[in-house]
């Protein structure tokens, strides 16, 4: 009875969205605070894009556009960016992930890294071009290369460690 009640259905979806939002917000804070480590002085890795990718591809969770929009706004306010920059990146990231992974290429786990690389570089590249147009000047490129590089290095490490933990948990269950 409860399952077919519309109110409960909406409430269930809303609470899931709120939880997801809170989780992404924590990841966002972790990402920005990583710059306290001397290793990430130049720039921090994009943990948020790794998280969203893994949520879409592995957990089959579709983050709503509004959630990504709000998370982007919060990130921009936290680090003092122009409001909207991160939201564009996240929305494009989601769009490319669905287009490339779910619609066309599908679905070998081994190729995850390559797809992530393509999607990340594509969406980041578009935002970067937009940033260049707005500022009318070219910034130093080393922090940007570091940001892209460290994100692409971190992705397989996180992916493999998730695989490892899931393997251990399955082993323990069996």
């Amino acid at each position, binding site marked *: 009875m409860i399952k077919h009640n519309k109110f409960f259905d909406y409430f269930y*979806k*809303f609470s*899931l*969205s709120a*939880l997801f939002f809170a989780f992404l917000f*924590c990841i966002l*804070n*972790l990402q*920005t*605070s*990583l*710059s*306290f*480590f*001397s290793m*990430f*002085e130049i*720039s*921090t890795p994009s943990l948020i894009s790794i998280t969203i990718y893994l949520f*879409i591809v592995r*957990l*089959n*969770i*579709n*983050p*709503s*556009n509004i*959630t990504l*929009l709000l998370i*982007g706004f*919060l990130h921009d*306010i*936290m*680090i*003092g*960016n*122009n*409001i*909207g*920059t991160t*939201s*564009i990146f996240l*929305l*494009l990231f*989601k*769009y490319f992930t*669905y287009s490339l992974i*779910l*619609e066309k290429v599908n679905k070998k786990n081994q190729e995850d890294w390559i797809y992530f690389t393509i999607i990340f570089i594509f969406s980041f590249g578009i935002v970067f071009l*937009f*940033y260049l147009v*707005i*500022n009318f*000047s070219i*910034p*130093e490129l*080393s*922090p*940007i290369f570091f*940001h892209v590089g460290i994100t692409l290095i971190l992705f397989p490490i996180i992916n493999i460690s998730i695989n490892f933990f899931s393997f251990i948990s399955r082993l323990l269950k069996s």
Partner: protein
Amino acid sequence: MVSGKPSNLKSFKNSKKSNFILVFLCLILVFLGKLDLIAIRNIKAFLSDFLEPVTFALNKPVKEIAGVFEDVKSAGSLREENIRLKSEIRKLRVINSKASSQEFEMLELRQLLKVLPDKKNNIITARGITAPGGVFANTVLINAGEDYGIKVGQPAISSLGLVGYVVNVGLKTSRILLLIDINSMIPIYLTNSNWPAVAQGQNGKLLKLKFLSSKAEPIEGEVVQTSGHGNRLPAGINVGKIVKSFSGKYYIKPTVDFHRLTYISIITNKIFQPFLSKTFDGFAPLQKPESSINLKGLNLSGKRVIESNDN
């Protein structure tokens, strides 16, 4: 909405349109943000105030862990550090004795020239809540705002030199645009040759030298300070030193380490009144002599002799 169902591809196809509309909306927002509208600035300030406790609480553990890592790292090089510090103390003692004698001499000369005394700066020191680490922006949020008299445009300094200036003020927080940000431009001068220029951030570690005269010949290691042109920043604050790149171009390396900023001071008295020449009767360089007074310098006892034209 988030859903864990396998029909996500369908829901994505439905949300494609809204995805594009939102991207377009964000593009408009970015442009509006670039126009620096007061409404957007106020919203940003309000949200910064609102998020400050959450951000502080979530950043605190990571900051502490990073601190532990730094401590462990420095513990390995304690001996070398100790030797370095001892030699630095010896050097500083020599410099200190020289400086104290020169300071006395300078005070006498200033008195002799009747140089206007420097206005005492009103300084407020606050703690940095966030660390600069964005790819597109280099700013720091501090936990002091309008309540403490902070206003947009006021300079932010640390013990080593200029950090940046305030760009957004909320009730309890303020945002400081660091020198290294691409949107930061400050008037400076080269201390050896007195050539004025503008230092622009590049979102990296070095600052670009802009509008420097082609006749100027910067020296590597030359100190760069704020010139005070435009009356926005006070003159004489350390900015950095000149460094030469491999390509032969000159850049400024800031003296402040922007990633080690814990406390930041804001100079809150930003208006520096230009002095009125009529009320000033000192023997200053480039002063326009008044017709009734003829300055002839000092006599043997050190007193200034003023001879009136009327006599």
